[in-house]
């Protein structure tokens, strides 16, 4: 089966721009905002959202990097998944944390990320931004900002490719 392109380079850019605008609008400003990207591609998406918001609001928006491996509910089903560093260079108490991830499916990654952040302090609120919501939830968790919603078949894989790691920007559906 041929890969189906859901978003091309230009569409990825527009979608990220829209998410950035929605984040500013919904929070009525950016003073308490802190971005937290979930490794790997969530970090690069968060970086782009940060640049967009900074361009609009003329402020500097802090960005943290979160590795959720230690908090996964399937950590030992994955056979020693490689750990990467968590680096959140700001106090999470009383902030509005915007969690950023590439694809949302079951909600388990988000659950792990919320637990990881809660262990660092008590944010005022946590919101979730994803580029693709592919449905098929197993936990009652939903994004506050979704780039596109695509209900993929179980035998399909939705992949986000970003130039920082994959050499090009696109969102594609591949038969798994």
């Amino acid at each position, binding site marked *: 089966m041929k890969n189906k392109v859901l978003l091309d380079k230009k569409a990825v850019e527009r979608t990220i721009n829209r998410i950035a605008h929605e984040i500013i609008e919904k929070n009525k400003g950016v003073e308490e905002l802190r971005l937290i990207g979930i490794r790997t591609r969530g970090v690069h998406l968060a970086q782009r959202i940060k640049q967009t918001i900074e361009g609009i609001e003329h402020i500097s928006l802090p960005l943290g990097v979160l590795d959720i*491996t*230690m908090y996964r509910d399937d950590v030992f089903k994955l*056979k020693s998944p*490689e*750990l990467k560093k968590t680096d959140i260079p700001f106090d999470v108490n009383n902030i509005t944390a915007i969690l950023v991830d590439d694809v949302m499916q079951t909600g388990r990654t988000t659950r792990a990320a919320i637990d990881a952040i809660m262990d660092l302090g008590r944010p005022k609120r946590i919101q979730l931004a994803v580029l693709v919501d592919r449905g098929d939830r197993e936990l009652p968790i939903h994004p506050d900002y979704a780039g596109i919603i695509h209900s993929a078949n179980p035998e399909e894989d939705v992949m986000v490719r970003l130039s920082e790691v994959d050499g090009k920007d696109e969102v594609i559906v591949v038969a798994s």
Partner: protein
Amino acid sequence: MNWTKKDLLGITELSKEEILFVLDTADSFKEVSQRDIKKVPTLRGKTVITLFYEPSTRTRTSFEIAAKRLSADTINISASTSSYVKGETLRDTAKNLEAMNPDVTIIRHSMPGAPHMLARIVDSSIINGGDGAHEHPTQALLDLFTMREKKGTLDGLKIVIVGDIIHSRVARSNIFALRHFDSEIVCCGPPTMIPPHIEELGVTVEYNLKKAIRNADVIMMLRIQKERGGVTYIPSIKEYSTFFGLSRDLVTNAKKNVIIMHPGPMNRGVEIMDDVADGPYSVILEQVENGVAVRMAVLYLLLGREA
């Protein structure tokens, strides 16, 4: 890479890639110990036993803290308060503990090979916390972690190990680990305390401390292993200290940014003087801090191994 080993019995059984994998994993765990809430749920529901037949402050506490920060349950058994004093054999103790389904047992024993024997008879993971004068793998891993953190590399360094090499499992495990890298390893101590043929491990021997530490990047001081008869290998403690004790004056022969390491416990005034132990080059307490991160990494990797 994927971790496949059930046990950590010694450095000799680890590849260079596995050593680096432990260090990289430890790098990620170090952050947990710097938080206000020093706990992650990764090993929830796992049981870790420390079974120590030799005294220990650092290693046992470090393993316990590592396990607890990963949310595992820990049980500590030391020989003096166990059925060992009633005559139970190590084998029977191990089999009985195994019947309670622990996930990892860390054993320290004066007999080399004791952890290896346990690994053959139990299904849970065994970690060698020091077996006689043989190996102390987690100490070497935390030493390499500290060297890499301080020097940015494990290649191109001059590393000098000084003291009772012949009785030192720390020296042995460090040499086994460091020889994977492109660094110069020098062993220094009285001739009676340098094992014959140690050059075959790729190290050089220098009996003069001042010469040995010239241009050194890392100096690792070891204590005399009194429990293994170390004092009978030298004329007197005082003489040993005169020739092999590290003073501030001597340190000036090393590189300006040298780091001084010691696995502890230190015998101040014997192998290391106060102004060195507490001086600006000392990373001795950082070794202890890093030990927790490295042991978290080892527990994590062994329990998540690929079956």
